[in-house]
């Protein structure tokens, strides 16, 4: 998952980004002002935008309005110091999905961020199941049947993305775009490494294969028998 943090207070942005990276395993981009934020949001595929309201150049409310006007549906979590009712109402009406007011609790912030990412993928439960494969997105654990499977962080992130969009064919570039920040192009050939690692850990010991390659298109996560 890839998150855009638009926050001009550098230290706060770094802390938020660090928490998202460490505790949720998301790739995070940071924008220091509204214009940059809007530009990044429109030119990249994000799974969540974290938006501060008081921003240089273009304020958060305008970023939100313009972003939604162009039809983007990425969930937006607003950071606000003004939690008066009318302000919150205005924000939600402008297309925000949720908000936390400063100074916020990092744990609550992360929980809300994860919930928004889940909902953005049409997934309500924090535990995603594909056949007998289960991903717990809170604990970031994977089990198949009764067996717990240990994954390296990048393998988990690839699997989580595929699981969130199960049954859909995901191209390698989409995976890259959602799993890495700005410099994803240079990681282009690592995806195959993680896919093969995942296949070895998840599929090799089981008769029903879950990870499939669609030649020329990408990868898909689904139970084998549905293939026909």
């Amino acid at each position, binding site marked *: 998952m890839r998150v855009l943090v638009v926050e*001009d*207070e550098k*230290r*706060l942005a770094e*802390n*938020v980004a*660090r*928490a998202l990276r*460490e*505790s949720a395993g998301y790739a995070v981009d940071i924008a*220091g*002002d509204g214009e940059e934020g809007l530009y990044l949001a429109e030119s990249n595929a994000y799974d969540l935008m974290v938006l501060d309201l*008081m*921003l*240089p*150049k273009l304020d958060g409310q305008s970023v939100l309005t313009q972003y939604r006007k162009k039809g983007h549906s990425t969930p937006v979590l607003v*950071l606000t*110091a*003004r939690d008066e009712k009318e302000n919150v109402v205005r924000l939600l009406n402008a297309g925000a999905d949720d908000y936390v*007011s*400063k*100074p*916020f*609790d*990092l*744990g609550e912030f992360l929980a809300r961020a994860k919930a928004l990412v889940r909902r953005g993928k049409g997934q309500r439960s924090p535990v995603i199941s594909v056949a007998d494969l289960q991903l717990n997105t809170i604990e970031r654990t994977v089990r198949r049947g009764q067996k717990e499977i240990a994954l390296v962080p990048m393998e988990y992130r690839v699997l989580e993305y595929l699981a969130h969009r199960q049954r859909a064919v995901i191209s390698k570039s989409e995976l890259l775009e959602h799993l890495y920040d700005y410099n994803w192009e240079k990681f282009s050939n690592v995806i195959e490494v993680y896919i093969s690692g995942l296949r070895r850990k998840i599929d090799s010991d089981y008769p029903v294969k879950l990870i499939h390659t669609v030649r020329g298109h990408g990868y898909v996560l689904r139970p084998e028998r549905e293939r026909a």
Partner: protein
Amino acid sequence: MASGSWPQTEAALPLPGAEKKAQQPLLAERAGAKPAVKSFSLAGRIIARVIVCQLVLTAALTTVAVLYARRELDRGFDAALNGWAANTLAAVRYSDEDVSNLIFDPSLMPAATNRRHPDLFEIRRSNGELLARSASPLPVELEDGKTFGNFLLNGFPYRAIVLRDVPVLDREENISVPQRVTVIYASSRVAMREQLEELAVSVAGVSLLLLFIVSAVAAWAVRRGLSPLREFATQAGAISVLNWEFRPPPEASSARELAPLTTAIETVLERLRESFRQQRDFTSDAAHELKTSVAIVKSTLQTLLQRPRPEQEYRAGLESMLDDCGRLEDLLARMLRLARIEQWVDTGMNRKLGVTEVTSTCEAAMARIQALAHARNIRIELVAPQEVHLQADPEDLEVIWVNLLENAVQYSPAGSKVAIRVERNGEGTARVSVQDSGPGIPEEQLPHIFQRFYRGDPSRSRSTGGFGLGLAICNAMVAAYGGQIQAFSGNGRGTEVRVELPVGSADGAA
């Protein structure tokens, strides 16, 4: 453009105005002591006055009517008395047997009209001998020379007429020298008095009835006439912090008497609303700054606690939090200082100010900024052709210069120069201007730069650690001293901030 911040500078300056606090309760007391005024109703008062006026009018009218009627009645009575006396005289005739003898023939007298208070009469011969009289005698003698006289009989008023030495004429006999008699005739005035009383009572009664009706109409009319005032008061009473609207009814706003009040209320409301809005903006901005600062510290702490980390990460986190705390401290110091100076603006300074030499305060401010200027390789040039003295606290002046210089240094490109000029400005003012070589301030931002928390380009002032309070502090301080602060900027030619302060009683010392 906004203030730059430089925590060390700000923290090092003592906060002036601490002595101000002690005076607050006194002030509040004075404001709270309101003389108790008994309330009254304007309409009631007007109605009462109208009624009093009408009462006086009614009384006057009744009196005049009664007096007039009495005079007329008196005249009529006198004429009647005369007639009755003549009738009595007519009952005197010469005796058939003795022409020289006069006799009184009572059968010729008209029947008595008033049995309770019968008329009285006397007829005397010219020699004073009584010829005839009524059943009751006249109780009084009439003085000579008077035609009319009043007396009381059994407590009832009577009026008498005297016809002196009137000749007795005879219809049949031709008497060459008629004999003369004196006729006194008195009649009760009780009936007339009663008539007069009746008249007075009826006039007064009608007047009172009219008074009652007119008063009722007046009360209604006054209340109705004052209804715009009542509506006005209701509307004015509805003004509150939540409702700044004042909509006087059209009749009230077009009433000439209320027009000054309407205008005054609207003006005051507008100013109040504006200052209230500013206050709310200030609170909101201040809350944003404070919450963000706390959010940074909190998120740093929570990030550090999320998992075990190597020692240097903890150390780096703690160091950054110390930085953040310094920033928070700086913000608080500035906010408090601004609040105190603004209190001076509102309530006056109330302190004894010595005479200060301006150039020395500029030098002190330059010394404080020197490190920052040096780091940015900027030269600060002081131009002070003459000594200028002001009645001021040197620390207050330094606060202004430090903030202006800090801004100038932060917005000037490295290697450039900042000039601070001190001069006497003719009419009893000192002028200090700070000129930078920065990019200037766009014209549309110039009116706002002295507002609290205003940042023309927030990203820049954030990066330099500013809060947008420096110029607001300067503005408040200058206002507290009764001076003026203005900024001039043409894009690309840098910015000049000009401060003009009245020299006060230091005038002679210069």
